[in-house]
């Protein structure tokens, strides 16, 4: 009798606690999910200088492989809407950050290609989750301004 009562009580506690998984849509699986995607890439703005930037993936990272993207800085032509590439002052760095857990991923290499154009390589998100690509303009090691692109991995 005692055993049956204990089992019944346990079931009353345990059954309402069963998990109810809500799976993320399939298209947010292995590929990098795009936010604010346009035909020519992801767009953002550095808030202090008002510099526009466009991010275009060369190789999208996967769970096992690093990726790379191109960054172009400049100002958008008010008539055509296209980016007019311009030189940008300071150093450009890219940080991959997982805000929900408060940590980053492995370092991203950034190399200057030409006026206002950079390549970011070794782009790898260390675990699935909601990530940010933080594109930073620095001077003397200080972050002057930052544009953030949100991604679901």
């Amino acid at each position, binding site marked *: 009798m005692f*055993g049956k009562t204990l089992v019944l009580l346990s079931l009353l506690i345990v059954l309402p606690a069963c998990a109810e998984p809500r799976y993320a849509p399939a298209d947010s699986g292995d590929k990098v999910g795009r936010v604010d995607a346009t035909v020519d890439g992801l767009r953002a703005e550095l808030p202090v200088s008002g510099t526009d930037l466009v991010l275009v993936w060369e190789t999208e990272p996967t769970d096992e492989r690093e990726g790379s993207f191109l960054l172009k800085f400049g100002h958008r032509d008010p008539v055509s809407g296209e980016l007019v590439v311009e030189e940008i002052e300071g150093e450009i760095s890219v940080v991959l950050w997982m805000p929900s857990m*408060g*940590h980053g991923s492995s370092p991203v290499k950034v190399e200057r290609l030409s006026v206002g154009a950079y390549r970011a390589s070794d782009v790898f998100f260390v675990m699935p989750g909601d990530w940010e690509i933080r594109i930073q303009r620095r001077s003397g090691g200080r972050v002057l301004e930052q544009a953030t692109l949100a991604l679901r991995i």
Partner: protein
Amino acid sequence: MRFAFSVLAFVWVALGGRAAFGSTCCGGGFAAPALISGDEKAQLTASLAAQEITTDVYADGDWRDRSFRETSETIKIEGAHIFRDRWQVGASLPIIRRSRSGEEASGTGDLSGSVGYEYLPEWDYNPWRPRGLGYLQLTIPTGTSVHDARAPYQLDSRGRGFWGVGAGTLLTKAWRTWDVFTRLEAHRSFAKRFAGATDSGILRPGWGGQFSLGAGYNFAQVRWGASLQWSYEDSVDVISAGAVGDVGNGSGSLERFATAAISGSYLWKDLLSLTVSYADQTLFGHPLNARLGQTVILQVQKRWAR
């Protein structure tokens, strides 16, 4: 009396296994304290836990099953000793190996120590009043945290990275062939500076807690048990160094999950026990911002009578 003694020893074995389940993010978490819940003078526990992360849960509650394999093995040594009759001290040290895609890293996890006091002793074997233990626990961040990790896939992350203190209570009760236990704990982690591969600054964690319920059925020298533990951690806030204004600063998301476990124990020569457990974090609770895994644990415990 001897049977009750054995049952309580088994309860501890079931609890001790919880310590090996690890946490959801990146190799470290708050461990259950090393406590003597029976009538022994001392105990030493060695456990081997093999875990596979199977599911990621986003901060908004969406689930995603893993498409790659990430595993860890934890060897844990725990010891506890009675002093001044109702007081006890304990300590535990995990050694963790994490593996993913052919890469692996190993080393120590977070060290923890505890002081316990038996505030509800079981001297008269009252049929209803439980045995109660209160404890204070200190977590020392000896394991590399995810913020300081440098290895591929951050596999060298084996701890939370924060000093922490906790207080909790463990209540146990045995009736004939049945036993039940519950544990409630609150803990606080403290801010620290970090300098990671991609950023630096100050991390501000907060409060956390655990609540466990468990029951077991005992016959001869064997106990079958089941337990459920809910875990919660406040978000970690980041204050980025070297930033102008609040660039890089941010608040994280709270983390919660539940761990269900079943176990089988065999008591050999009264003071030596062997336990095999299976724990699953995908079955219960409403997890948020967590990495869920399945774990098999093998545990051997030696106890010394008073």
